Structures are given as C-alpha cells and as structure tokens.
C-alpha cells in the first residue's frame, strides 16, 4: 500500500526495514532500509545502514549508502557518510556528504545514454571540424574586409556615379557597423563636431576589439591592401573626406 510509515523521534529500530509505501524516519534505524516509496530522514533522524527508495530526502544523519530510483536530495543539515546514487542527486548548501556520488538513470536510460556516447564520439570529431568553419567568423570578418574594399571601391565609382555609391555605403554600414564606424571615425576626426563622441567609442572599441583581431587578421591576410588603405586615409581623406562626409551627412 502507499501508506506512510513513521519511525518516531523516540523510537529506535535495530534491524532491517523493507516493504512498500513511504517511510519517514524521525528516530533512529540501525539497519538497512529498503522501501518502494519515498524515504524522509528528519533533522533528528539517524540511519546506520543502506537506504534505498524512490526519492530520498535526507535532513538527518545517514551512515550508509543512499540509493534513490528517482532522486536523492540532501537538505541543509544533512550528514551523509556513504555512497550516493540516483538519477537526480541534490546536495543543498549546508549538507555534508562524504562518499562517492553518482548520478545515473534507470537501467534503460543508462543503457541508452551509454549507447549514444560511442556513436557521439565520432560525431564529436566532425563536430570539432564543424566548429573550425564556425570559428572562421574570421572569414566573416574577411567578408567584411571585402565590404571595405567595396567601400573604397565605391568612392571611385562615386566619382563616376554619385548615386550608386551611396547605396552600397548604406549596405556596408548596416552589414558592418563596427568597421563602418571605424572608417567613419577616421574621416570624422578632422571635424571638431564629431570629435567628442569619437573618443568614447574609439577607446572601448578600437582598444578592445578593433586593433587586436582586425589588425592581426588583416595584416597577415592582406598586408598590402590594408596598409595602403590605412595610410590612404590621411592622404585620401583630404579628397574623400569631404566627399564621404558630405555624402554620409547628406544620406544620414
């Protein structure tokens, strides 16, 4: 039956306790406890022996192994010396435990978990390969770089066609907000109006993100192109500054 049994606070049981139903131990049990229901060991409860049940909630002292088919929960104040095993194991702050702790599910679950693991290992290797492509967010940055090329390229077309460049410029700024800001900043420094806001974004962004990753990546990947680009800013800006700034301002 699902009836709940109680070992009172003033009761000492010397022997095995087993059977169906739940058990609440407020006193002492000197022996093994094995029930089909839940087992609660109260704050004053003490058990010297193995305890097995569905869900074990321990607030007292247990010297022996704890085996819960559903869960083993150690409440604050619990003192357990023995191995703990169950699909769910909880040890609350203030609970003391000494022994081996293992979280394992039902036999079926454990078998299922073990079966996928070996298969998962080969999968993990490809997964690692996959991460490599993922890591190439660097490539994404490279893509961003081409965007910069386009951005630089546009100025040339801008000379040819003033309407065409603005559109790509907008797209570039949206796709690569950070680099766009950097570029924008570079040209912007000259104008005093934009100067105050610049120092703030520059300090956090360039110092943290922009200089370390972009520089290292850009220099090895495209040492020639980036260098001309950066130096050009001082040179080109004179020509492009006015055009870009005017264009951007007008677009904005």
């Amino acid at each position, binding site marked *: *039956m699902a*009836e*709940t*049994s*109680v*070992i*009172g*606070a*003033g*009761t*000492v*049981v*010397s*022997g*095995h*306790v*087993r*059977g*169906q*139903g*739940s*058990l609440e131990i407020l*006193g002492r049990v*000197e*022996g093994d406890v094995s*029930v089909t229901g839940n087992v609660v060991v109260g704050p004053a409860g003490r058990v010297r022996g193995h305890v097995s049940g569905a869900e074990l909630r321990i607030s007292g002292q247990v010297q022996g192994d704890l085996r819960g088919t559903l869960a083993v929960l150690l409440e604050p104040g619990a003192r357990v010396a023995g191995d703990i095993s169950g699909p769910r194991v909880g040890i609350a702050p203030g609970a003391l435990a000494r022994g081996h702790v293992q979280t394992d599910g039902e036999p079926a679950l454990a078998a299922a978990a073990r079966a996928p693991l070996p298969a998962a290992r080969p999968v993990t290797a490809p997964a690692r390969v996959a991460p490599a492509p993922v890591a190439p967010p660097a490539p994404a940055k490279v893509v961003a770089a081409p965007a910069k090329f386009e951005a630089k390229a546009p100025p040339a077309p801008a000379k040819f066609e003033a309407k065409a460049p603005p559109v790509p410029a907008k797209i570039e700024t949206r796709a690569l907000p950070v680099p766009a800001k950097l570029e924008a900043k570079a040209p912007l420094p000259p104008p005093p109006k934009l100067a105050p806001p610049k120092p703030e974004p520059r300090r956090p962004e360039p110092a943290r993100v922009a200089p370390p990753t972009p520089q290292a990546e850009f220099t090895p990947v495209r040492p020639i192109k980036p260098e001309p680009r950066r130096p050009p800013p001082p040179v080109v800006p004179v020509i492009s500054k006015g055009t870009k700034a005017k264009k951007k301002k007008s677009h904005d």
Partner: protein
Amino acid sequence: MAGTVIGEGLTIEGDISGDEEIVIHGNLRGRLTTTDAVTVTGTAVVGADITGANLSVAGQVTGDVTASERVDIQAGGKLVGDIKAARFTIADGASFKGNVDMEV
C-alpha cells in the same frame, strides 16, 4: 501524534524500542519494547515479544507480552504467547493461546 507507525506493506525484521506510541499495520519480526501504548491493527502480523504500557491486538501476534497496564485482544484478534499484565481482556471472537500472569 502517533509516534511510530509501521504501515501496511512494510516489514521490519529486528528490534524496535522507544518511549512513544507504536501502531503496527504491517509486519514485524523481532522484538518490540516501548513505554507507551502498542496497537496491532487488523492487517498486522507480528512475530515478536512485546513490552509496553497498553497493548491492543486486532491482528495476529505471536510472542510473549508484558504490559505495565493492560492487554486487550479485540474481536478478530489472535494472540499466541504468554501474557503478563495487570489487566487483561479477551473480546468475543478473539483467539488466544498461552499463559496469563496477572501479578496477583
């Protein structure tokens, strides 16, 4: 407060000792000692020597009984063993086999 309750379906093999009331719905094999009342309900099967203040038996008990106050065997109860108690009653329909010592 019921003190200790041995639920139906639960089996204890060993000794139980304490100073509070004990109610047994399940099975007990061993020895039972308390300073308070002991109740053996209709579903209980006890094979143990029992020591307590009051003993009420509605189930099956096999073992010697020592009670400081009284022993009552309810209708349908079955007790096999010697009894030592100041007061002792056997209800109609109860079974009993053993010696009785009422400390005359």
